[in-house]
């Protein structure tokens, strides 16, 4: 996929609102390093993904080395190291979902969007991932799109959901 990965924002800096939020986050912990995960979540919300420049910015905020921030960032699957689609679709593939048709859901998405795991549609609208158990096995199969869960899916329901996304 031809992603504009090299294009970074001119200057990596939180908005005023995010700066305030960051100060609130710091107050919750006895040390700065404990604020790493919440700060990375905030950074991802601000910048879309965690580029190397963002890691450097976060490391300055938290008095950590870039290496320490990189180490943490890369360990967690939810921190994106490159841009994803406007709608990031994550299909649960673990056993309970697999028993209730997760593969059909995933293959339908691949065909419909014309992309494979880890790719973004050319218009930047959708990206696709398989993920492990989302903690909602009783309503399998389950898909998470950005922050939201879609449960008890059928192909028809899924199509309807996708069609309604702007």
């Amino acid at each position: 996929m031809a992603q504009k990965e090299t294009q970074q924002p001119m200057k990596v800096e939180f908005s005023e609102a995010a700066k305030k939020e960051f100060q609130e986050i710091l107050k919750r912990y006895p040390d700065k390093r404990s604020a790493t995960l919440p700060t990375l979540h905030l950074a991802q919300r601000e910048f879309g993904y965690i580029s190397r420049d963002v890691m450097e910015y976060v490391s300055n905020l938290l008095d950590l080395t870039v290496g320490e921030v990189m180490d943490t960032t890369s360990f967690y699957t939810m921190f994106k190291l490159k841009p994803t689609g406007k709608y990031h679709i994550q299909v649960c593939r673990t056993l309970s979902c697999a028993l209730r048709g997760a593969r059909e859901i995933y293959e339908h998405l691949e065909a419909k969007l014309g992309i494979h795991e880890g790719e973004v549609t050319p218009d930047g609208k959708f990206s696709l991932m398989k993920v492990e158990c989302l903690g909602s096995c009783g309503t399998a199969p389950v898909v998470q799109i950005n922050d939201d869960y879609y449960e008890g899916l059928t192909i028809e329901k899924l199509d309807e959901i996708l069609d309604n996304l702007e």
Partner: protein
Amino acid sequence: MFEKVLTQHINIPESQSIEYYLKHGGYQAFQKVLKSMSPDEVIEEVKASNLRGRGGAGFPTGVKWGFVPKDDSKPHYLLVNADESEPGTFKDRLLINGNPHLVLEGAMIASFAIRSNHSYIYIRGEFVKEARILEKAIQEAYDKGFLGKNILGTGYNLDMAVHRGAGAYICGEETGLIESLEGKRGWPRIKPPFPAIEGYQHSPTIVNNVETLACVPSIIERGASWFKSIGPEQSPGPKLYCLSGHVKRPGVYELPMGTNLKEIIYEDGGGILDDKKLKAVIPGGSSVPILRADEIDVAMDFNSLAAIGTMLGSAGTIVMHEDTCMVDALLNLLHFYRHESCGQCTPCREGTNWAEKILHKIESGHATEKDVELLGEVANHINFRTICPLGDAAAMPIQSFLKKFGDEFRAHVGVGHCPLNSRL
């Protein structure tokens, strides 16, 4: 007649609000504790109740709290484990959605008991909505004076905050969780020292599951003997059973501890999907040994399941009917464990990788008898040789699948395809 204790309000839309919770007797137990009990009295009551941890290991909750030093000068921490990432488990999410203040009240009482003034709820990153619900509930509790400084004029201080994970099964393991809370990757720590002595920030720390803590307010209010009267005395109480896979009515069922597994599947769960024949059941989350269809006439509690060689774990019951290929099911799980191994110990990191590869080969029908044997050996080499129990959690399914469904593995040998044409 069993009266629901954890989920009786769950389907009522207002049940998330503090007003609703207060109207239905909420925060009475916390007030009772603050006004009339000492921390040690709380610990003794919970010990007497025989409450055992609902996070997986079933450790007696009061006993664990008792390990926290009583006269040190360090801060103490109470961490609520809302990571809920064991495949087949989805009960804590229901509690957070439907009764967040019950979880908070349990955490407040636990904090008081272990002399902690700081509590964090570690919630898996994917539960965005649930994190917001908890944040709102915490704010409400501050506004009503149940959190903060000098709570209800008693001199007790307690701060609480939500901490979101970011996608890593291993952060459900208590020391992985602590590392993650400290801002690092979630690499489990070697024990001892146990967290109760040296946990978050090198300070005494208790990690408890959401459901465990949700049991605490009713123990304080109604007494240990009432709690002990529900289910088997050695592991009593109300229990949330998660039912998923090939059943007609999957979901969370609150029943007395020790309810018969067959009854849960056929009565609560409505029986097997499409009226097919039952083949296998994983009773306690993906990490515990599997049961054959003829083994499910068993009480779902810690001791009864241990007696037949499996575990209650997180009570994530995964049901599989006759069309399920056991090789494919195990392959699905090994993919999970390989993906989630933190990579710190060689047997776990390499073993899960090997096992997945061998299983691929078996499932595609291109393996030999020797490969099936090798799979068993790989599992034996992981078991009991790692820092944290994830290694065992990957090995136990392999060993039990091979023991109970070995014929099905051997039937794949050399046929060039899966005999059941399974594609999970």
